């Protein structure tokens, strides 16, 4: 391991990775890797997570292709120094801000979007001129093996390395000195990463999670809008890796009087998208492993929580499948309402008045995303100014990821 890192540092020192032509060649090679191996990628995702090709293309392959193409088209602009204004007092001085690579970068990726969350940060690191060590998650073993075997065939081995392994490898990597660490995963591990980085004053980017709520205010408008809302909620919960996504809708907030309408719409949509019951389940990923399966099943063990199930609830331990499940008003102090769910269970919390969503959300820690289905401009403004989250998306779910915001 130390040898690999020493090589990465040597390579960086030679200055080869700073040249725009090197960066472009690596990005083009990455695009080729994706284009030429689509089928293998689909296969690995199906093996590790039961993802269908459409989901895999929409959320992983397609996203990555776009990211590389966009980066290639903007690279020269991004690399160029930017002029900065100089006060008259300093005339005729000139000033500029110049991007420089940090050096040797460590990327930890997570298991739920094993390609996107590994390669998208890699695209960033390469475009900025760094050398990289990528440590994919061993909880998606087929994808990890694919990356370990295939990346060396396309990218510059001296500058981009992939290391297989589990938490113990991760711990060892964290003892070493990096110029930047990019981590996607849970807040618990995020703290460990940052604490290790502190020893070397290494800057970090931590992409974590939270309980991302969806506020629903539009059911009282036209039936077609209500239908679209239901589709987008279902698509935003069970579409991405059956809810195992940092930006998946975690729970829904809706006015009491509209709850039953919403639940009926959701049930209809779930049946249409994913099948009538657990036996005929299709177009949906499975739970990644026994440990996560058990964790989710345990969330439903609490009798008060189990009582609040209004749809679904069946599980298949052998196939690691939990059918799309809706709960109505589980106890607010239950684990399902305090921990990030990261699975196919959707609590619906009812309020007397939809405006109460703001206080409800503020009583919990900042989520990664707040989704709000509403056409009330005043309410939109209140949500924006009175809540705090990574992102806010109005009237849709998930799509904000596909932007370069």
């Amino acid at each position: 391991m130390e040898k690999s890192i020493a090589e990465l540092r040597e390579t960086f020192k030679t200055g080869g990775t700073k040249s725009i032509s090197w960066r472009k060649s690596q990005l083009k090679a990455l695009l080729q890797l994706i284009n030429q191996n689509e089928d293998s990628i689909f296969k690995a995702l199906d093996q590790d997570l039961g993802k269908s090709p459409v989901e895999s293309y929409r959320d992983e392959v397609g996203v990555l292709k776009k990211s590389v193409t966009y980066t290639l088209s903007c690279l020269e602009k991004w690399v160029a120094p930017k002029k900065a204004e100089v006060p008259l007092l300093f005339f005729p001085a000139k000033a500029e801000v110049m991007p420089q690579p940090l050096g040797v970068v460590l990327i930890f990726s997570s298991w739920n979007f094993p390609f996107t969350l590994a390669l998208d940060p890699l695209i960033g690191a390469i475009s900025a001129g760094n050398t990289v060590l990528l440590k994919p998650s061993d909880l998606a073993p087929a994808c990890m093996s694919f990356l370990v075997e295939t990346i060396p065939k396309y990218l510059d081995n001296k500058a981009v390395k992939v290391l297989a392994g589990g938490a113990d490898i991760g711990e060892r990597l964290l003892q070493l000195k990096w110029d930047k660490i990019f981590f996607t995963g849970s807040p618990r591990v995020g703290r460990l990463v940052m604490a290790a980085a502190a020893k070397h004053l290494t800057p970090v980017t931590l992409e974590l999670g939270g309980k991302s709520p969806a506020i629903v205010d539009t059911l009282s408008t036209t039936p077609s809008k209500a239908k679209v809302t239901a589709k987008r909620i279902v698509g935003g919960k069970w579409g991405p890796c059956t809810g195992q996504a940092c930006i998946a809708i975690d729970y829904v907030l809706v006015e009491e009087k509209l709850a039953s309408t919403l639940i009926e719409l959701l049930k209809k949509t779930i049946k249409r998208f994913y099948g009538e019951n657990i036996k005929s389940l299709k177009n949906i990923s499975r739970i990644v492993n026994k440990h996560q399966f058990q964790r989710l099943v345990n969330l439903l063990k609490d009798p008060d929580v189990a009582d609040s199930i209004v749809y679904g609830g069946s599980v298949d331990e052998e196939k690691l499948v939990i059918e799309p499940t809706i709960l109505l008003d589980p106890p607010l102090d239950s684990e399902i309402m305090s921990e990030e769910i990261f699975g196919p269970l959707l609590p619906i919390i009812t309020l007397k008045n939809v405006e109460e969503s703001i206080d409800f959300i503020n009583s919990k820690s900042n989520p990664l995303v707040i989704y709000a289905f509403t056409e009330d401009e005043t309410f939109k403004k209140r949500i924006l100014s009175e809540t705090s989250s990574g992102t806010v998306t109005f009237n849709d779910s998930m799509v904000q990821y596909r932007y370069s915001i």
Partner: protein
Amino acid sequence: MLMENKAENKAVFDAESAKEVVKELRDSFVTGKTKSHRWRVTQLKAMLKMLDENEPQIVAALRDDLSKPEFESSLYEIQILKNSCRLALKEMNHWMMPEKAKTSLTTFPSSAEIVSEPLGVVLVISAWNYPFLLSLDPVVGAISAGNAIVLKPSEMAPASSSLIAKLVADYLDSSCIKVVEGAVPETSALLEQKWDKILYTGNGRVARIVMAAAAKHLTPVVLELGGKSPVIVDSNINLKVATRRIIAGKWGCNNGQACISPDYIITTKDYATKLVDSFKCELERFYGKDPLESKDLSRIVNSNHFDRLSKLMDEEKVSSKIVHGGQRNEKNLQIAPTIFLDVPVNSLIMKEEIFGPLLPIITVDKVEQSFDLIHSSGGKPLAAYLFTNNKKLKRKFVETVSAGGLVVNDTAVHLAIHSLPFGGVGESGMGSYHGKFSFDAFSHKKAVLYRGFAGDAFLRYPPYTPGKLTLLQALLSGSIVGIIRALLGWFWA
């Protein structure tokens, strides 16, 4: 009687006290008070008033703590602070506006923007060498971004610390901006709490402690540290101007006790003597024959640092290399501008950040060799300087040297340019501030996407069919031909 009361009243500031302070500020923040444009404006105007009405007291406190010349206090602490306030007052409206972001065909129709929101309750820990500037400049940034703030000034500049505490309480909104004075115990108590951001100015050792404490709460940090800022001096330059500028950046900035002070010089063997002579001439012009008598030099902050610097000077292989200066007065904590020629690269004075009035000159055969020397010397510095008229050398310098900030043909002045981010890289720090960068440092840039209900793309939803896959591939690629083809295929299927 008065003394007794004072002792009783001075309660211990422990973790409980820190918790209470944070709770009070968080309660204030939640009311939305600090978010309003009006509040931010009144605080910044109050700070301007505070600086205008208390200049003599500030100068006096700096003289007590550092023997800082009035000239330096007025210009480098008060004036720069006033400029920061004025810039924020002028530009804040513009900074606070959401920034439109481009959307793509994939999610048409939609609009997107980036909204700046305050992070919440922030902690500013400042340093002793520019006690007013390094305390209040970050506070200006935090106010302009709409946060509630705790400021912990450095106990090593006690007169400044207590004046800051008094003035902030008198002029600013104490329900939202507080000063906590103290040393290690008080700082530790503060660091145990959960903050939404911490900005720390100081050294690498304490920075590691700050970041480790921040890690427990996933608190983002800005660390403004230091390093050995080198000055490369080429030949064929205006030697007089270069020398004067180096002197101003070194001894004119708190007598070398500044994070961006030129730390050491690299020049060619051929040019070294000329350079040393120029220094001797200009130093005498600036500070007189006996610099210890000059009123224009700060003193060394305390006896710890005086001893540290003496040790650097007295190291056997270094003390013989003095070519100018060397006078000391331990009682008054004074060390004269001292220049060394050709100290060994492995001497103490070349290993740690000097932070004082000692200037080693290292010589190389060719000026291009300077770059290797800088890179081999360990951590990336906060600043690097080059004096040259050679375009190629300038280009190589800018492209290969990695430091927080670079200046060609001057020293230190880049900190006054608000359009440049001020911060370090690697060992010299992370994050930056000054100008709009201060506002950004204390803001969360929230991504916002607005969608409507029209044009719902059925492709996103199950059942997932091969036809949908093809169409999706075409759409995501953005190729019009691909999209038409796929649509035709879809309709014909």
